[in-house]
């Protein structure tokens, strides 16, 4: 039993780890391709068909570049920072329930690494710890631009985490008072996805997710025009690669989180009708596969929207960023919480 459990957990860990890395690698390709398409270009087209081998070429380039550690830097922290950043990025992916549990024999196997019963807060805390990678990297570089970037990044993270957390509280109320990711997704099985009840909450969460992943229009931490490369100015070779890679993993995870929290995850309209029409029992592996496909498609759409926004909207100024976070999103999320409580009271989901 224990052996079985260990084998199952290691398979799923490796699978999700590989999935995160693969998606992150191909996000870099898709970002360039999509940017090209949006700008009337073709994007990468040389390495393989449609440039599909581009991530490999990039990885090779990163690996074989000269590794430079500035002599005035704090060496231990300098080396530690990219690793820390990518670890925190990957950890958040642990919570995502990719599909309905599969039943093999009598035992149920959830397609999720860990169903933490405080999943939502775990997600928030992992997100907030993620800023250490940037901060330590920026500080250890011993470069004024990097330091400024680290400070910007941490201030931005703290500011947007508040609005994000409060919009998530509203979501939890709608989802029936559970903090478990799997249960939030499962609650959207029947009826509408959460976004129907939480349009404002979704909007706030989306903007905060953009800010938390350091993506445009909130990528002030790596603003080339002002800070050269920001916190990764001094990094080269694969350490730089890890930083860039972690950004894409972050983006992948937050896309998956949004798809799960607000768009039903592996559920889709008329899913149960489809399964009955196919004659599938609860726990059949095909149900999980179809569900995984649905979840994955939603995630990819969100990743594309992230990129689409990046190539449309110019970067915010720092004071605009702070104003938006504290003076707009925070009050809005509180208002959203109030509205949610009133609506849920009249729907009969909460009683005092």
């Amino acid at each position: 039993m224990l052996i079985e459990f260990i084998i199952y957990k290691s398979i799923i860990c490796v699978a999700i780890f590989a999935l995160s890395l693969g998606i992150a690698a191909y996000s870099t390709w898709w970002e360039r391709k999509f940017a090209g398409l949006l700008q009337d270009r073709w994007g990468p087209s040389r390495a393989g068909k449609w440039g599909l081998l581009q991530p490999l070429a990039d990885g090779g380039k990163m690996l074989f570049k000269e590794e430079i550690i500035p002599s005035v830097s704090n060496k231990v922290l300098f080396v530690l920072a990219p690793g820390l950043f990518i670890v925190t990025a990957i950890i958040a992916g642990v919570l995502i329930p990719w599909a309905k549990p599969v039943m093999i024999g009598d035992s149920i196997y959830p397609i999720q690494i860990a169903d933490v019963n405080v999943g939502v807060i775990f997600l928030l805390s992992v997100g907030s710890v993620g800023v250490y990678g940037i901060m330590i990297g920026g500080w250890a570089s011993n470069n004024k631009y990097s330091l400024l970037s680290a400070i910007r990044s941490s201030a931005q993270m703290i500011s947007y985490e508040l609005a994000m957390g409060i919009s998530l509280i509203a979501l939890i109320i709608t989802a029936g008072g559970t903090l478990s990711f799997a249960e939030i997704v499962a609650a959207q099985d029947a009826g509408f996805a959460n976004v129907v009840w939480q349009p404002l909450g979704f909007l706030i969460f989306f903007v905060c997710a953009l800010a938390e992943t350091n993506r445009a229009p909130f990528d002030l931490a790596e603003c080339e025009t002002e800070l050269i490369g920001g916190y990764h100015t001094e990094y080269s070779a694969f350490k730089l690669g890890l930083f860039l890679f972690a950004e894409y993993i972050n983006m992948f995870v937050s896309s998956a989180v949004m798809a799960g929290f607000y768009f039903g995850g592996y559920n889709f309209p008329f899913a149960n009708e489809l399964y009955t029409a196919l004659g599938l029992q609860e726990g059949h592996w095909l149900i999980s596969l179809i569900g995984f496909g649905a979840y994955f498609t939603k995630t990819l759409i969100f990743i594309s929207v992230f990129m689409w926004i990046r190539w449309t909207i110019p970067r915010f100024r720092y004071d605009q960023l702070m104003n938006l976070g504290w003076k707009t999103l925070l009050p809005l999320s509180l208002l959203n919480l109030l509205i949610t409580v009133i609506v849920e009271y009249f729907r009969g989901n909460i009683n005092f």
Partner: protein
Amino acid sequence: MQLTNRSKVVSNKEQSFAEKIYLPAIISGMATTFSHLFKKRPTIMYPEVKKEYAPVYRGQHVLKRDENGAERCTSCGMCAVACPAEAITMESGERKKGEEHLYREEKYAKKYEINMLRCIFCGLCEEACPKEAIFLTDKIVDAEFERDTFIYGKDKLVEKIDKRIDVTKRQTPEVLEFKKRVGLRHNELNKTIEKKH
């Protein structure tokens, strides 16, 4: 003082509600970028597809030979005179007996050099040439590492006998007719030279 009518008065008016919440502007911007997904792309996939040159593209020079394979250039120096960048220098020589198959005229260019760093590829040398000897082709001058390798001598400029370069596209009857017009400076010079003789 108002110089043009193009100046725009900046208004500092309050933003309307729709402008304040950003969203309409963001959505319209996203729609704009999205519409570009379906636009025609001007990219030319270079090594496979090459951009077509205009028939009168002005690239590296060639010194033409006539149909028997003799050099047309008579080293008159009209091209050097016409050259605004002073890129052309030459040295004349007299044709010896038995060299008729090499040089068409009695006087020929012993040395003919064009400094490709000075040349601005204006094509005035081509216009000035009375013997239809120098032409600009669609070949792009190669990149080099040294400055002095950019001075092209006859070895690089004169066309190879087995590799003739077709310039019929540039040498249309209209062009030939145009070159005889009296007003052109090199024709004036031609006349004065003829008078002296």
